[in-house]
Each structure stands twice: as structure tokens, then as C-alpha cells.
């Protein structure tokens, strides 16, 4: 047997060497043109904001990879036709599900393809897009006065360490929703403004409505990004910091610790639907629509669904407002704004820039709100009569108010890894397996270690 194994190894090695013919180091990531161009400023890419209507761009085709599962006849695809009509630039749309997007962008970047010109960028990927040389740095490409036209929150979400990595696409944060009817039944006259008040109200609701199988609140606390998101908002509300000034994890003390202790307290009060530990945002919304929870934190754009009698039992009962704060903090909420970026390997960067310019235009931003309820990144639109007219649920002002209190997740390259580590710690604390301080200390040590490894 031993001999056979040796033979096998030898044969395999021989085969490998003869076939491949060569060994060698792995290819450098992000293409040969990376590194230098990044540091000398984005203008090295030769991109010019004023040349986007250059006639030479007509007839070029750009490939756009973003979330769109509505197919070639969906609203996004129709808008793209409008762009082609205006500029003469053809668009090949690769519409994928959000969950497959990140893999696709990264695989394409690793393979150094120039197939894809424009990609969606979630706020948490900004660091990777910059450090991994995936997207073009737009800091000096998009003129300052154009940048100033966007809401600070949507602009901040697509910026990493001062580098603007994408065109702000839409604004998004989590919001506070409540069921007026259920609050009324529990004799609560107004929604809570602080988390302490939230807890007191929860206890009252639970006492009065609990016997009916209703819970005061429900959360997206499955061990996943949705949990980290809620925690980041809470850390903000309790005045905590994710990292200290020197870049070391600081969420295991002060506000960060208080935030988790508060979340655990809610679980212990039994005012939180225990299924929360298995829920993502959609599940929370489902429970809210079924009238099983009185309060929730969720993203914008739930209204058409909540007031649709075929899907919801609580038509006309829901309202939205600011997430509670604590102490000096009025409100704090995790942002989920996204941008649209130009791939560094793209061979049609100027045409891609024309596309980004159009994405940032009033025309597109307004049309997206009208057709898909996507909240604009442009400041001026929030006072635009056309937009107000399209706001059929009359929640625009309340949604917009929350955008002022958005908190970005740390969007450094290592974020995705940190978030997994953190979600694991948060989940074990919430499910009662570990004390909050122990769990956070462990996560902080691990993240510190990961940072050390990256720098070593």
C-alpha cells in the first residue's frame, strides 16, 4: 500500500508538472495597471467630467452589473433604454440578485476581466473597492460642486478614507416603524423617543398584548449582516465608537458594550419575539404585517407592501419615524446607501462616467423614486414638487429626517471579515450563551488580530 501511495504521488506530481509546464507565483490582483495609478490621483485615468457627451462615445457599449431581478422588461431595464436614447451609449445590463452580486464583482476583478464596466457598490465594500484596486477613485473626477449636490449621508456611504469610490445611487437607513393600533390598545400615546422609553413601552405592551401572542418588537438578529447592522445603529445611539482614534477596536467598552447589554436586556425582558434570532429583515416585516409585533426597525420602502390588503393584515395601521436615541443622541441608524462604481479594468471608462453622470441626474433619481420607491441621493430632490407628488404614502419627510442620523458601518477592506466575527459574538450574547462583555472582548481581540495579520 505504501508503495502504491508513493507511486500515486509521484505520478500525480509528474502529470502536473508535464501538463502545466511551469509553476510560479499567483497573479497580482487587480491587473497590471494597479498600484501607481491609484496614488497619483484618479485623473491619471484620463477621465474628464466635461467630456461625457463626446461624440466618440456614441455607439460604445458598457456593461453594468447591479441588483435587478426584474428581467429585461423591468423598470430598471426600461430606464436604461432611456439613457441609450439620450447619449447613444448602449448598455448591456447584467441584473443579478443582491446576494450573488459581491461574488460576481470579486470573481470578475480577480480574473482581471474588462468585461464589466460599471458595478454596484454597497456601502460596506468601499474599502475593498479602493484597496483591492477594483474601482476607479472618483474623488477628483466628479467635480466638487456636483459632489456637494448629494446628501452628506449618501456621499459618506460611498467614501473610504476620503476617497470617493462611487456615484451615490440611493439613500437608505433603517427606520423605526410601529403599529398605531397595537400601541393604542396598550394605551401608549406616542412612539418612544429614547431606548429607555422603548424598553418601558415594550414592557407595557408585552403585559397587555402578550397573552394574545403579540410581541412588543421583532428584530433581524439572525447571525448575519442584518444583526451587525442593528448593532451599529445601537452603538451610535449609546454614544459608542466602533474603533478608537488609533484604529483599535473600541466597541467592547463604553457605548458599544452598553448597546449590546441593552439588546440582551430586551431579550431577557421577553418583549422581543424570540424568533428574532432566526430572522432577517424580510421576516421581521412579515411578522409586522401579520400584526404579530408592535414595533420594528427596518429599511425604507416597506409602505406599499404594508398597506396592500393582499399581503398585510395591518392596512393603514403602520407609521414611521425616527429610531430612538439615548442621552444626547437624538437618533442613530445604520446606513445602507449604495453607489455605482467604475471598474478599473474597464475599457470604456469615459462612457461609464457618462453613465454615472446620468445616475446622479435629477431625471434618473426622480424616475427611480416614482417607479421603484428608491430614495434619491440628490439633496435638491427632497424639496422637488414632482418627488413630493410621487410620495403617495406621505412619509417622505419622516424618512428623510432619519437620513440625517445615519451611521456608516466601518467600510475598511477587512469589514466583511470583522462583521462575521462580530455577528458571531453578538448572536452568542443574545442567545444567552455568553455574557455581553466577554463576547465583545473576544470579538475585539479577534478583529485586532485580523488587523495585525493584514498589516504584517
Amino acid at each position, binding site marked *: 500500500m505504501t508503495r*502504491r501511495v508513493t507511486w*500515486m504521488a509521484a505520478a500525480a506530481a509528474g502529470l502536473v508538472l508535464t501538463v502545466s509546464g511551469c509553476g510560479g507565483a499567483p497573479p497580482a490582483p487587480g491587473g497590471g495597471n494597479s498600484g501607481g495609478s491609484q496614488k497619483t490621483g484618479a485623473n491619471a485615468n484620463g477621465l474628464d467630467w466635461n467630456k461625457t457627451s463626446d461624440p466618440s462615445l456614441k455607439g460604445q457599449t458598457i456593461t453594468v452589473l447591479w441588483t435587478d431581478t426584474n428581467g429585461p422588461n423591468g423598470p430598471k431595464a426600461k430606464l436604461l433604454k432611456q439613457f441609450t436614447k439620450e447619449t447613444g451609449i448602449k448598455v448591456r445590463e447584467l441584473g443579478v*440578485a443582491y446576494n450573488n452580486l459581491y*461574488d460576481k464583482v470579486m470573481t470578475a476583478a480577480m480574473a*482581471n476581466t474588462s468585461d464589466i464596466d460599471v458595478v454596484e457598490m454597497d456601502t460596506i465594500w468601499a474599502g475593498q473597492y479602493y484597496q483591492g484596486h477594483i474601482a476607479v477613485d472618483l474623488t477628483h473626477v466628479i467635480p466638487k460642486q456636483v459632489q456637494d449636490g448629494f446628501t452628506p449621508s449618501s456621499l459618506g456611504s460611498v467614501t473610504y478614507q476620503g476617497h470617493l469610490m462611487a456615484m451615490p445611487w440611493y439613500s437608505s437607513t433603517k427606520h423605526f416603524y410601529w403599529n398605531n393600533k397595537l400601541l393604542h390598545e396598550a394605551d401608549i400615546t406616542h412612539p418612544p423617543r429614547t431606548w429607555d422609553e422603548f424598553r418601558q413601552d415594550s414592557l407595557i405592551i408585552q403585559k397587555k398584548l402578550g397573552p394574545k401572542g403579540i410581541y412588543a418588537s421583532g428584530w433581524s438578529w439572525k447571525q448575519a449582516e442584518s444583526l451587525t447592522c442593528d448593532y451599529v445603529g445601537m452603538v451610535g445611539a449609546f454614544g459608542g465608537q466602533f474603533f478608537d482614534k488609533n484604529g483599535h477596536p473600541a466597541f467592547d467598552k463604553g457605548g458599544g458594550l452598553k448597546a449590546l447589554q441593552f439588546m440582551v436586556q430586551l431579550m431577557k425582558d421577553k418583549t422581543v419575539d424570540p424568533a428574532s434570532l432566526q430572522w432577517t429583515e424580510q421576516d421581521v416585516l412579515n411578522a409586522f404585517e401579520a400584526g404579530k409585533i408592535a414595533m420594528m426597525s427596518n429599511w425604507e420602502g416597506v409602505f406599499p407592501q404594508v398597506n396592500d390588503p393582499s*399581503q398585510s393584515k395591518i392596512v393603514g395601521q403602520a407609521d414611521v419615524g425616527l429610531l430612538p436615541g439615548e442621552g444626547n443622541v437624538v437618533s442613530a441608524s445604520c446606513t445602507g446607501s449604495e453607489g455605482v462604481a467604475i471598474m478599473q479594468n474597464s475599457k470604456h471608462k469615459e462612457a461609464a462616467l457618462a453613465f454615472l453622470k446620468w445616475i446622479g441626474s435629477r431625471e434618473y433619481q426622480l424616475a427611480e423614486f416614482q417607479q421603484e420607491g428608491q430614495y434619491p441621493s440628490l439633496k435638491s430632490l427632497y424639496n422637488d414638487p414632482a418627488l413630493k407628488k410621487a410620495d403617495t404614502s406621505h412619509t417622505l419627510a419622516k424618512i428623510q429626517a432619519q437620513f440625517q442620523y445615519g451611521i456608516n458601518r466601518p467600510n475598511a477592506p477587512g469589514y466583511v471579515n470583522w462583521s462575521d466575527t462580530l455577528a458571531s459574538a453578538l448572536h452568542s450574547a443574545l442567545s444567552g450563551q455568553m455574557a455581553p462583555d466577554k463576547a465583545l472582548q473576544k470579538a475585539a481581540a479577534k478583529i485586532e488580530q485580523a488587523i495585525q495579520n493584514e498589516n504584517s
Partner: protein
Amino acid sequence: MLRQRDRALDGARATTAGEDARGPRARKGYPVWRKWFRARSTDLFPPFYLWVGLILLTVFTLAPFVYLFTSSLSEKQELLSGHLVPHRVTLDNYVRLFTGAGAGDFIHAIRNSVTVAVWTTVFSMVIGVFAAYAFARIRFPLRMTSLFAVLAMQILPSISILVPMYVMMRNGVQIDLPFTGVVLYQSPPLLDTVWALVIAYTTFSLPFVIWLLAGYFQTIPLELEEASYVDGCNRLRAMFQVVLPLSLPGIAATAIFTLLGAWDEFMFANAFTQTYASKTLPIAISEFIGKHGMDWGLMTAGGFIASLPPVAISLLLYRYIVSGMTAGGVKG
């Protein structure tokens, strides 16, 4: 040979069962119910336990599948109220699936899945059948070693070849003569085509085909093949006229396994597909999971539709699957 006996027994089933009811013990004056607790001499289970077992087996096997189906006929409100069987049956989920916004993609996905599964199977079988024959029937140096190497390829995780393979698909596949630099054929880039998937799936289906078929070929008695040499056949003819026809159940079973494997694959498909031109069913279904959660109605309907072809194939060809399983393990 086994399968012939099996068929004969199946055919004689009705009469055997009938005779059994008035078995020898019943005649000797045993109470009738006793026979329910007595196994026949060649059997293991007394009828009572047999049927209890069968009922349990059926319930556990079918219940989740039936639940998938009934859920797909429910409205969202019913799903979220915990109705196992809908109070009001609706085809709404199917209507949304086939006429809704993503309908075009889903129908394309069905077509792509069929194409990919069929071509992967054809490709792997045509190449694999020769290799399997060589492993099973021809003595040559390093035979066992190579067969183990083939098995080892089955174990290696697909993740490790995903990126290099992506690069290959991006550049197009080259058919060349090794060491000469002569390129016989250079394909266009294959990303976002079904061919990228066919090639990728061959990496795991070809070793599997060889492994299963080599096992099956071994169960064909050597004497039959040797007899054909006496008739003046050479090896190639012996293979096509004796071994392959006798191995038909094994070949069919292997083909079914390959087909189902290709139908099921997710990881490569997720990496290589971009548009409706190449997205397969697992990808289409995974897209029902939105950024913040799941559309249960669409998932159950889509999942049911996507599972119909493999379930139908398995039901129709189950006999081949069972007899094909004699490959491996069973002494020839």
C-alpha cells in the same frame, strides 16, 4: 443477471402474494392473524411490521415534499399564519413565476438547465466510457494508481479551482497539442455561456462516471467477453458488442446521476453566469432571496417546478438506478 431475476420476481409478485395468504401454516389451523406476525422463510419481516415500516417510510419521505407543494398553492397570509394545507388554493405563485417580472429569466433558466445537464452528461459519458473500460478490463501499469487518482479528484473541493477556471473561461478554452505549441482550436470567451458550465461540470462528473462505470463493467463476466474473442472479435468490438450492451443499466444509472448532479450544481453556476443567457435553475431560485429576505411563495413554486424534472426522471427510470447501483461494492 440479478436484475433479470428481480424482474421475474416482480412479475410473479401477484401470484406469490396470493398463494401466501393461504400459506401452509394457515392450513394447519393457526389463527389467521398470526401470519401477520410471522415472516416467510425467505423474508425478514412479518407482514405487520413490514407495513408499519412502509407507512412510516412513506410519511417521512413524502411529507416535506407535499408540504413544499401545498405551500406553493398558498397565499402569503396563509403561509405566515402556519396553515399546513391552504384553506384557499391559489395558483398565484405559479402565475407570478411564469408571468411576473422575472418570468423571462425563469423560463430561460429551465432551458439552460436542460442544455447544461444534457451536454455535460453526453460529454462525460462519451469520454468516460472508454476510460472506464480500460480501467476495468485492460491490465496496464499504474492502473490502480490512476484509478485512485481519479477518485481523489472527486474529493478535491471545487472551491480551489473556481478562480483559475474563471480565468480559463474568460480567455476561452484552447485545444492544443501539448509541448508543440500547435493550437488546434481556440474558443471565444465562454463566460456567461452554458458551455462554461458544461466544461466546469465535467471536472466532477467525469471522474464520477469513470469510477461508477469501471465498477459496473467489472460485474460483467469476463468469460462472455473472452467468448467473443474466439468468434474473432477484437477488443473494440467486444467492448461495443458485449460489454456495453450488457452494461446498459449501469450506463443508464450513471447517466442519470450525472444528469442530476449537473442539474443541482450551484457554486460554478453562481460564478460563471451573468445573464439569462446562462443562468440555471438553482441560480434563478437563489434570486428569490432578496437583499433582506425571502419570497417564500415564489421559492416554493419555483422549487417545486425545478424539482419536477429530476423527480420525474428518477421515478420513470428508478429500475435502472437501482440496478445501476450494483456498481461498486457488489461482487461480480
